[in-house]
Structure formats: structure tokens, C-alpha cells
């Protein structure tokens, strides 16, 4: 393997990590505030992909613009789901089994709605630019992946800014750190939870819409990505956006480089295996590993 090959693989991994990060931040904020493991994430990704497809086919929007337009729609969908279903769950500072089962049931319902509305044929968003590439010395970059990466990274940075510099962001982070203290200082946790759920679902939809211009999809779309998102948020320590970025990069590098030694069919098995491994060996994520090393030193 030459140096150029390695450079190509690293670039591919970084571009992949961008989209992985978008798909996982939604899950992270929902988990952080509400301690709900969103099993319906894949269903919302699928919904986002199809909404982007509708924008693309009916309004002839650019795929990236279509993805960005999907975001506010999915935020509203998320808020509605929170208002009708999620807020009736018993509150807990640990993930509960009813929440797991509820989100799982929701996933099945969404998947079925997908089949009813769009049928079960594989669809894709295809433009004349889809196969364009940029040559950067020996490194070859597919342009569509680059655009997806930029759009995704931009949204994640916007989220980070929202969390750091707005009242809503401060309230959200306060609830992540200590929900009881948050309530004592007068944060309306019900309202913040609803907004957070909407935001999380918005990011799920955005990720699905962005992935739609890279891969073909059908209503069963998203299951392998759901498990990747689990790996990433567990790697990232479950509650922080920067943790998610690190987790996404680690998973993307592992997946990209293992292809050299293993057939691509096993790629999924690797991320699933990694999930179990990380859950058991590093329940606090990479951050806890760094902390442990620091304590030893």
C-alpha cells in the first residue's frame, strides 16, 4: 500500500465521519436531556430521506438544499411526536424499558408508513454531478461527498453554537448536567425536552436526507446506521457533541481501513462487534479512557 492509498483512505474516512456525526448528534442530545435511547432514529432518517426525495423530484431542488429544507420539517415532526407520545412516558434519570419499547413501536409504525406512501422499491437521488470528482494531487475526492460533508459539518457547528451561546442551549446543558437543579432554578424542563426532541429528530431527518444523495434507500433504510450511531455515541461518552465527533471519526477510520483485510460484507459485523466491545470495555467512552490515563500518570 502506497502513501497515496493511505491518504485516499484517510480522506474517505474523514468525509464519512462527517455524515456519521450528523446522524449521531440527534441521538446524543435526546439521550442527554431525556435519557431516552431513540430506537426510532432510523425511522426518522428514512422519513428525512424521502422528504428530501420529494423536494428533489417535485421542486427540483439541489439535493443539498433539499436536505437542508428537510431539517425544519423534521423538527416539527419531532415536536409533534413528543407532544403526542413521548411526554407521557414516566420520567426517569435512567433509560427505561417502556421508553425503549415505545420508540421501537414508533419505528415499526414509521417504517410501515414509509411502505404505504412510497412503496418498497429502492429509490435514490441522482444528479448529473453525482459521479464528479476533484483531483487534489494523488487524492481523489468525490464532490457530492465533499458537499455532504460541508453541509453536515456546518449544521453540527451551528448546533454547538446554539448550545454554547443561547439561553436555550444553556438550559439544555444544565438539564443534561443535573435535571433537579435545573428545575430548581426555574427551567421549564417539559418545554426544553420538547424542543430538544424536535431538534434531535431534525438532525436524524437531516442525516437521512444527506445520506439519500450518497446511497439508495427504501423504507427499511437506516437500521445499519442506527447501530453505527449507537457505537458512535457510546464511544463519545453519550452526552457531548465533541465526543460524538471523535466517536464518528474513530468508527469511520476503523470501517474504512478494515476493508483492506476483510470482505466488504463483513463491514457491518465489525461495527456491531465494536458496539458490544465498547459497551463492555469503555462504558464511559473515549473521554473516560483519557481520564483514566490521566489519573494513572
Amino acid at each position, binding site marked *: 500500500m502506497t502513501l497515496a492509498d493511505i491518504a485516499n483512505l484517510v480522506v474517505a474516512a474523514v468525509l464519512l465521519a462527517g455524515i456519521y456525526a450528523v446522524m449521531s448528534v440527534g441521538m446524543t442530545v435526546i439521550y442527554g436531556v431525556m435519557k431516552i435511547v431513540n430506537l426510532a432514529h432510523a425511522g426518522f432518517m428514512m422519513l428525512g430521506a424521502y422528504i428530501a426525495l420529494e423536494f428533489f423530484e417535485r421542486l427540483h431542488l439541489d439535493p443539498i438544499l433539499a436536505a437542508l429544507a428537510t431539517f425544519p420539517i423534521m423538527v416539527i415532526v419531532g415536536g409533534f411526536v413528543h407532544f403526542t407520545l413521548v411526554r407521557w412516558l414516566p420520567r426517569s434519570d435512567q433509560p427505561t424499558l417502556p421508553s425503549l419499547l415505545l420508540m421501537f413501536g414508533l419505528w415499526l409504525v414509521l417504517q410501515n408508513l414509509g411502505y404505504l406512501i412510497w412503496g418498497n422499491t429502492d429509490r435514490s437521488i441522482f444528479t448529473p454531478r453525482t459521479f464528479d470528482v476533484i483531483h487534489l494531487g494523488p487524492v481523489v475526492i468525490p464532490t457530492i461527498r465533499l458537499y455532504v460533508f460541508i453541509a453536515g459539518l456546518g449544521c453540527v457547528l451551528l448546533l454547538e453554537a446554539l448550545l454554547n451561546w443561547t439561553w436555550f442551549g444553556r438550559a439544555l446543558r444544565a438539564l443534561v448536567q443535573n435535571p433537579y437543579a435545573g428545575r430548581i432554578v426555574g427551567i421549564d424542563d417539559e418545554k426544553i425536552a420538547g424542543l430538544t426532541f424536535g431538534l434531535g429528530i431534525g438532525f436524524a431527518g437531516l442525516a437521512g436526507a444527506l445520506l439519500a444523495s450518497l446511497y439508495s434507500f427504501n423504507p427499511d433504510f437506516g437500521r445499519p446506521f442506527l447501530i453505527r450511531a449507537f*457505537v458512535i455515541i457510546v464511544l463519545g461518552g453519550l452526552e457531548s457533541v465533541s465526543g460524538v465527533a471523535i466517536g464518528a471519526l474513530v468508527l469511520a477510520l476503523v470501517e474504512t481501513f478494515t476493508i483492506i483485510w476483510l470482505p466488504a460484507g463483513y463491514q457491518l459485523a465489525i461495527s456491531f462487534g465494536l*458496539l*458490544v466491545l465498547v459497551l463492555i470495555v469503555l462504558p464511559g467512552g473515549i473521554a473516560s479512557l483519557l481520564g483514566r490515563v490521566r489519573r494513572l500518570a
Partner: protein
Amino acid sequence: MKSRSLRWQFLLPAILLAGLLVLPEVGLSPNALRLLFVSFVWIIASLAWNLLGGYAGQVSFGFAVFNGIGAYVAAMLIDNGRLHPYLAFLAAGVAAAIASVLIGLPTFRLRGPYFAIATIGVSEAIRVVATNVDFTGGASGYRITESRQFNQLEHYYCAMFVAAVAVATTYLISRHKFGLGLMAINQDEDAAADSGVNPFAYKLKAHAIAAFFTGIAGGLFARYAAYIHPNGVFGFHNSVQILLMPVIGGLGTVWGPVLGGVVVGVIEEEIVAYFPQAHLLIYGGLLIIIVLFEPGGIVGGLRRLARWIRRVLERGPGTPAADTPSEQADEVLWGTGSGPGR
């Protein structure tokens, strides 16, 4: 009073069993026999899942693994008459139980929801590997050639026997110290550990018993269908179905999973045939309704109804009644998990 209810507890299943034994003699269409056979197979898996998920509160999304291993072990042993089918079923159960220990050793270090997520990972990883190796027939599947003649009645009685054994096992466990230990783990794992229950060993044991039965169910189905493929028997939809039955029927009860198995069997075989486009909608909707409104499932709902009727009959309307049984069912589902740890 107590002896009367105890008598009913044995009389009703005995009547049910006798009815199911003579039913084929009275004359049932092959289609009705098939429906009953499929229901028995589902009931076995449902009762098995309930041991771990209902009594011990460890929700697993990975029972398709045991279903698949059982199906393949049985298929390969039965194929070309290498082994008597009944011995093959036993081997299938044992193989699945061994697999369950190998999976449980690492994953039971995780608690509650984290265990649930890990099981999705394990089962999907195993499915992917199974579709990519040669001896499973890959994506094109595995055909079973049996040396003896197909006899639907024999399949029927065989599945019924295993289902009856599963019911009896669940009943005995629920009355035994082992079952009480599992329920204690469900309510508070730390408190259970303090009072002398070893949660890790208990969960591992429940997992192995559950896997044994699920493996046999997989074997029964494989022999009946005579054709299996990895994406079918190891498929995520199988894990989902096995999980849904006890949740719909009533977690942590003996008869809930049986009812759930019948309901799902009938939905799967009859309703899906007429509304194939709505089958996930039915399951998902049922799951949402049960989580939000009746955590005790069908059995919980029936108990609530019975309590209401008794109250109206005995004390007249408006008097609050003591309600313990359904509260217990609530506890089973709503018991909270804790963070990842060991």
C-alpha cells in the same frame, strides 16, 4: 378459596391440553393444523423470551440468533436422515444454549437498556456473518431433505409437546426460588445481590434456558418448512416478533406469553394475509398502546376487568378495591434499569 383457585390452575390447562390432543381426531383442515402448529412454535419462543425479559426484566433484541442456530443445527442433522429429528431438536436446543452462554458472558456485564442495545449489535453481527459463510448456504439458503414421509400430525403433536413442556417449565420457575430471584433482579438488581441472589449467574441461567427452548422452536420450524435461509431465521424481524408476543400478552406471567403467541400467530397468518401492507403498523401500534395504556398486556387488562367486575358484584360501585396482581405486572414492565456497570 385458595384450594379452589389452585384446582382451577391445573384443571383449565388440563382441559386445554386434552382438547388440543383430540382436536385433530375430530377432523381439522390441514390449514387449521398449520395455524396451530405455527402458534405452538411461536408460543415456545414467546415463553422462552418471557423468562429473561418478563421475569428478569432483561429485554433482548437478539433472540433470532437462537432461533437461527437452532434452525441450522436441526436442519443439518436431519438432512439426509443423519439423525432422528427428535434428537436433532435436542441438539439444536443445546447448541443455542451454549451460544447463549457465550453471548451472555460479555453482555450481562451491562445493565437493562445497555444490554438491550448490545443484543441488537450481537444479533446483527451474527446475521451478517451467517449470510457470508458457506455452510449456511449463504443468501440462497439451505434445503432439508428428510428421509421419512411428511406427516403433518406428527409435526403438530411434537410442537404441542414442546409447548406444553415450556408452559410447565415457566410455571415451575415462577413458583421456585429461581423465579423469585429473577423477579428480584427485575425490581432492584443491587438489592437482589445484597440479599443473596447472584444476578450474573441467574441471568446467565435464565438466558440459557430461554435459548434452549428458542433453539428447539427454530428446529421445529426448520423441519416443517424444509427450507431456511440466514436472512429469514436470523432476521431482525424474528427477534422483534419473539419480543412482541410476551409484551402483548403480559410480561412476567405464565399465560400472557401463550396468549401473545396465539394473537401474533393469528395476526401473522390470517390478518397479514389480508392486509399485508399494514402488518408493521399493527405491531407498532399495539406496542405503543400497550406501553402507554396497559403495561400488563392482555393478561393485565383481563385482570383489571375481572377486578372491576368483582368489585361491582361484591361491594357495589364506587368502593376502591385492593389491587395487587396487576400492580405486579406494572412493576415488571416499568421497573427501571440502571447505568452501565458491572
